[in-house]
């Protein structure tokens, strides 16, 4: 059994595994093992590989390189692992990394089940975890921790971004196509609340199992409902199939689909022909301004794809973490945590962003509309900005958070 270790060391690009250096380093040196080690725990081989995957690892590497490869003279190292979309695999990898491989911070964490499990391990082991691609707001509520940061977006910002904006613009009868998963149901409930508060009406919902391919039946149900807006509370293949079916059955454009979690990559695979007119909330779009274009072009050169919001978040959050480590002068988790919550985030990804005590990174979100094929003028020219949603409105108010670090009760 133990003979398999040559592979393990492969993962650590410059293995500096000193035997006792785990905890003993604290007192003498300011950096554990004399290295700041970042682990990217992501889906390398499953259905989310396009959303995070190798490109997420690359984004983190870019941040490290742009930072200069070292903090206060201490080298920074990036390793990666695959959680296979299984919470237990993710938790066990995270535990191993924190426990015996001296990883200081874990980034990405696509898949909510994995993110929640790793957050629990991070809290227990007192090391940092930053989630960029999971949506579960439990990370900054019941499962919050001083060491866990939820960076790019969450279910609340999606619901309030897309939902609220649409109701305010007059789309006030809704029908939901919801994936029968905690994620989808949660999203549906949140948007429903937003719609009702704004005086709108929810006329119905159909909950379909995960991995449904044939959405024709739901398209008819949506059509029969007569709702102005069809809220699509699913993501990836489910959302794509749903949008396809709505277009095929002529439900759209009379009734307008609103995608509650659509990734940039999903639009690529839908094609503009079908996707045009869709409304979606995303925290980042490559073509938003000069700064985003500069980063995205560099990213494209390395990975062959334009960054989505999670990958941009991977870069930005790594940079922010490293800034905090530099300012703290140590990789001690508590000191870094304090700095992370003090330093303001100003880069291509966020301006005036900051991290709340419950770990929520607050920054502006954007409502986009997908362009029609005629409007699209060059490669990857997909989205038009409809509206900027200020961070304070986009995210759950701090007083509503159930995080135990706040004294809300």
């Amino acid at each position, binding site marked *: *059994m133990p003979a398999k270790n040559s592979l393990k060391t492969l993962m650590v690009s410059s293995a500096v*595994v000193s035997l006792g250096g785990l905890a003993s380093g604290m007192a003498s040196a300011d950096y554990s093992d004399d290295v700041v080690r970042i682990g990217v725990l992501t889906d390398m*081989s499953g259905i989310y590989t396009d959303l995070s995957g190798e490109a997420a690892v690359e984004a983190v590497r870019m941040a490290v390189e742009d930072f200069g490869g070292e903090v206060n003279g201490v080298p920074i190292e990036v390793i990666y692992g695959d959680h296979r979309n299984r919470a237990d695999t993710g938790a066990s990898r995270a535990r191993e990394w924190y*426990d015996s491989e001296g990883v200081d911070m874990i980034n990405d964490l696509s898949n909510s089940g994995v993110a929640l499990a790793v957050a629990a391990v991070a809290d227990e082991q007192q090391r940092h975890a930053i989630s960029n691609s999971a949506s579960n707001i439990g990370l900054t509520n019941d499962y919050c921790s001083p060491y866990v940061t939820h960076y790019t977006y969450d279910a609340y910002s999606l619901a309030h971004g897309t939902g609220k904006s649409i109701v305010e613009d007059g789309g006030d009868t809704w029908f939901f196509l919801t994936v029968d998963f*905690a994620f989808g149901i949660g999203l549906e409930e949140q948007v429903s609340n937003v719609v009702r508060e704004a005086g709108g009406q929810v006329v119905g919902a159909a909950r379909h199992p995960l991995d449904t391919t044939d959405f024709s039946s739901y398209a008819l149900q949506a059509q029969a409902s007569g709702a102005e807006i069809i809220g699509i509370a699913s993501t990836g293949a489910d959302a794509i199939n749903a949008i396809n079916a709505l277009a095929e059955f002529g439900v759209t454009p009379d009734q307008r689909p609103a995608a509650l979690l659509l990734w940039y990559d999903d639009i690529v695979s839908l094609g503009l022909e079908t996707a045009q007119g869709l409304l979606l909330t995303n925290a980042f779009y490559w073509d938003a301004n000069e700064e985003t274009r500069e980063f995205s072009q560099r990213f494209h050169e390395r990975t062959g794809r334009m960054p989505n919001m999670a990958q941009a978040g991977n870069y930005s959050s790594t940079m922010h973490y490293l800034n905090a480590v530099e300012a703290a002068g140590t990789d001690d988790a508590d000191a870094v945590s304090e700095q992370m919550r003090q330093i303001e985030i100003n880069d291509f990804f966020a301006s005036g962003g900051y991290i709340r005590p419950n770990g929520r990174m607050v920054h502006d979100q954007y409502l986009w509309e997908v362009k029609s094929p005629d409007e699209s003028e060059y490669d990857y020219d997909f989205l038009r900005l409809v509206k900027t949603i200020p961070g304070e409105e986009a995210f759950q108010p701090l007083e509503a958070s159930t995080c135990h670090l706040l004294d809300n009760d």
Partner: protein
Amino acid sequence: MRTLSFAAIAVVLLALLAVPFVPQLIYSVFVMKMLCFVLFACAFNLLLGHTGILSFGHAAFFGTGAYVTGILVKEYGVPTDLGILAGGLVAAALGTIIGALAIHRSGIYLAMITLALSQLVFFFFLQAPFTGAEDGLQRIPRGTFLGVIDLRNDTALYYVVLGIVGAGLWLVWRTVNSPFGNVLRAIREHEPRAISLGYPVARYKVLVFTISAGLAGIAGSLKAIVFQLAALYDVHWHTSGDVILMTLLGGMNTVFGPAVGAALVSALNHYLDPFGAWVTVIIGLVFMTCVLTFRQGVVGQLNQWFSSRRAPIPSAKGQPRSHAHQQ
């Protein structure tokens, strides 16, 4: 042969006992996960290898164990040891029900009934409000074992898991090498004859189903405690497929072959990360090679190899089967 097997088992046991002392070589939490699957696969093989019943729904028992233990320990504050026991018992009860329904059919039909029933179990856990659906049942406290051993300590937990899995494997071994096990083999080889000899075959089958399900449930319970979570994947049909794979890779006509298979599959999944997106392809190719070249599984093949070296009599293809049970 016998001494060789004992020597091998002793070496493995010593290595397992030493695991917490060599953290730089192998990570004990990973070994715990492996042990859970070892128990799961050996329990499963009571049906496949020893009775000739292919269940394509064993994840139902594994996952039920995990969820039952998780809920009891987390929501109702039941002590961990009792929680694990309850997980095993509920899984065993489910095994009795599914077994009783399934054994009226055989072969592929039986496999499909178990698959279908396990899909219904999956649906139940997907819908049940307490499981958290795809987010999983998180933050199950590890608690203490028998009120004294603090399981939050990885090393303590490791030995407890090792002990329970060891006891489970012993039970599997005892079952196989008992008069009951002989009847099971008789059913596998020639069911009508077993019936005509007057054995209550149906009752025997339900019983072995129950034992197998109960042990699979314990394996799931242990995993829930080790990782402090129970997830939908544990009841998903993929997990049912995984355990078949482990068993076949290790060798279904041996008692501990599935254990080797489980260790192998866990290790593949754990150590292939550097290959990134290629990992699925590589695992697929490994399985393909295994099924084409050593069909009797790793342990089955080793057995055959050793026995053909010991006894110069040309061994027939089917022979390893009869050898295996004596180990």
